């Protein structure tokens, strides 16, 4: 259980991982330009104020954009300077490490990092600690947590459990899925080796087994972070089985699922899709009736809380009263969720 929680957030933004291999070369150029732009927009450092360096992976991802909104607002409220950094598109230690080195050279008061690898960033964390800079984790965590003051993250296993509940309720489980005629659902993941996907799938499967024995989950489609690949796979499941539902484990798979049931016409009309991540496109699909429910993480809250704890640590000089690990529950959004709530959780691409 411990191990699980250590790695579960590590490769969170799985949709970027497939792309990373492909774009390495171009990033050599573009990352310099865009990191440069990013640093230009940060507030000017004042010597009196605390400054908190905040390094994410794949900064352009709406997930991290939402995190920025929370972190930025909290930093403003508490009167600290936020140094927000991260490669725009690449979720990988090879691009993250230079960014960390650069922000450490600016001598921030604290470092918040979403490590793109559980191990690779550790030497830099140690380096920061040695300079007296406390280090915090957000979203993903370092393998060695004893150097980390606090880690705020989403709970992927709980998200998977919530997805199973949402799917069962969308299917109207007690009347539709009986032992005489069980329900069949397809599952789409980005990669079966990504810990995030594995944790969500684990929660989903366990909940089906425990509470919904009359739902059979097919072997997962592996989309490699490509919605077109997910779509092709779901189309196969739709024509091979009398499919009632789909659990799309991330935004890319949800896109693929929505397109597959649209293209399937009448065969896809009654298939209930539960998706993951409150991307604007997914919310739009839900409002258009293509997605029955979305499991949302809380990146804004993650960003807000970690800044709160960092400032608390800086002000009081120790970690008293700061949780070492805070796991935020995932939220279930459905078509009946109020617009205000949707607005709150949608990942903003600001």
């Amino acid at each position: 259980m411990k191990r699980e929680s250590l790695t579960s957030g590590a490769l969170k933004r799985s949709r970027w991982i497939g792309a990373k291999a492909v774009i390495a070369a171009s990033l050599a150029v573009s990352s310099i330009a865009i990191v440069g732009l990013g640093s230009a927009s940060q507030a000017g450092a004042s010597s009196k104020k605390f400054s908190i360096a905040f390094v994410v992976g794949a900064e352009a991802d709406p997930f991290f954009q939402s995190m920025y909104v929370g972190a930025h607002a909290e930093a403003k409220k508490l009167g600290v300077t936020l140094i927000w950094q991260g490669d725009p598109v690449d979720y990988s230690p090879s691009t993250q490490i230079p960014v960390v080195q650069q922000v450490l050279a600016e001598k921030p008061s604290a470092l918040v990092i979403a490590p793109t690898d559980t191990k690779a960033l550790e030497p830099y964390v140690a380096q920061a600690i040695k300079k007296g800079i406390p280090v915090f984790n957000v979203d993903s965590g370092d393998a060695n947590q004893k150097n980390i003051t606090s880690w705020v993250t989403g709970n992927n296993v709980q998200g998977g459990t919530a997805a199973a509940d949402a799917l069962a309720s969308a299917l109207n489980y007690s009347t539709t899925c009986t032992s005489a005629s069980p329900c069949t659902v397809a599952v789409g993941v980005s990669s079966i080796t990504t810990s995030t996907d594995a944790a969500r799938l684990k929660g989903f499967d366990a909940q089906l087994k425990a509470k919904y024995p009359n739902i059979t989950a097919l072997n997962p489609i592996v989309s490699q972070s490509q919605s077109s690949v997910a779509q092709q796979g779901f189309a196969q499941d739709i024509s091979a089985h009398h499919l009632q539902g789909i659990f799309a484990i991330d935004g890319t798979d949800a896109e693929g699922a929505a397109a597959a049931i649209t293209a399937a016409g009448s065969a896809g009309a009654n298939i209930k899709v539960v998706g993951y991540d409150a991307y604007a496109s997914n919310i739009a699909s839900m409002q258009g009736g293509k997605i029955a429910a979305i499991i949302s993480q809380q990146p804004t809250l993650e960003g807000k809380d970690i800044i709160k704890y960092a400032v608390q640590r800086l002000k009081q000089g120790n970690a008293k009263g700061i949780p070492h690990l805070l796991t935020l529950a995932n939220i279930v959004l459905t078509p009946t969720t109020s617009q205000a709530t949707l607005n709150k959780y949608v990942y903003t691409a600001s």
Partner: protein
Amino acid sequence: MSTSIDTLESVGPSALKRLQSIVGNQQFILLLVLVALVIFFGERNSLFFTSSEFSNLLIDFSGLALIAVAETYVIISGGIDLSVGSTQAISGVGGGFAMQSLMNHHMSETGVLLIGAVICAGIGLVVGAVNAVLITKANLVPFVATLVTLSAGAGMALVFSRGAPIGQNPEAVAWSATGIGPFTWLVIIVISITTILGITLHVSKYGRNNFAIGSNSFAARAAGINVKRHIASVYMLSGILAGLTGMFFYIRSGAGSPQVGASSNLVAIAAVVIGGASLTGGVGRITGTLLGAGILTIVTDGLIFINVQPTWNQVVVAAFIALAAVLQSIRPGLRS
């Protein structure tokens, strides 16, 4: 004064010769494999023989066919184009932005898609032209040149789109399912383009030049063929076809996704190799490539169809490429 310069060594045992010529007819073997696969999957789940599944297979085949044809031209000419995958992404995203603005101006769906197709093809042409310049002017080897555009294209697609699908167009998805029986309009268009390019490769002077250049570019140049211009045109053709594939996936998924086609360059190359083309150039057939693409499509889809563990999919595809390599090595007539 007709004399004979005849130093042909005596032909080996005729039985071996005949075996070689049957095995060497790779097309025939591929056809058998394809039929066997269909029977296998249908045997496991008879729904495989339904018209809706046939339609699925045709669409998935079409998503691969254009870039496989492009890759056939390129590989026969002695090159390779790694950028066909990311070109789909950059043209789908670029086309997505353009179509979004057309939709905002309330243009008719048909108009949006037609203009979108032209824009996607245009973006593909630009990528192809960059490849052409890198190869024929900067004298980079095709592998390196197209690796550069592969990386640049994928990076640009992600940066411009910020990772999100561009130009949401659910109407396009609905249209993608229409057509004549299992043959959707998309499939019909792709098959038409494929047929024309296939015939061109095998009966025209352009196609003949392509083989000659891949076989011996010095000989081609000595015979008066403008080799550089031809090579440039091949990469531009490949770019256009990849751009059109970007449009294909825009229509199919109802948006231009920056991740589309990420690994499809390798699948396309695999289809060409399975189809019997030589990576050193000069050898290949469109029918072989299409059979290769068909086999890869059926394997990929069929394994999901019969609910096999996903890890097996890649293993099986790898096995088919290995099979192709074996078939190539026992093909007769590859001296020197």
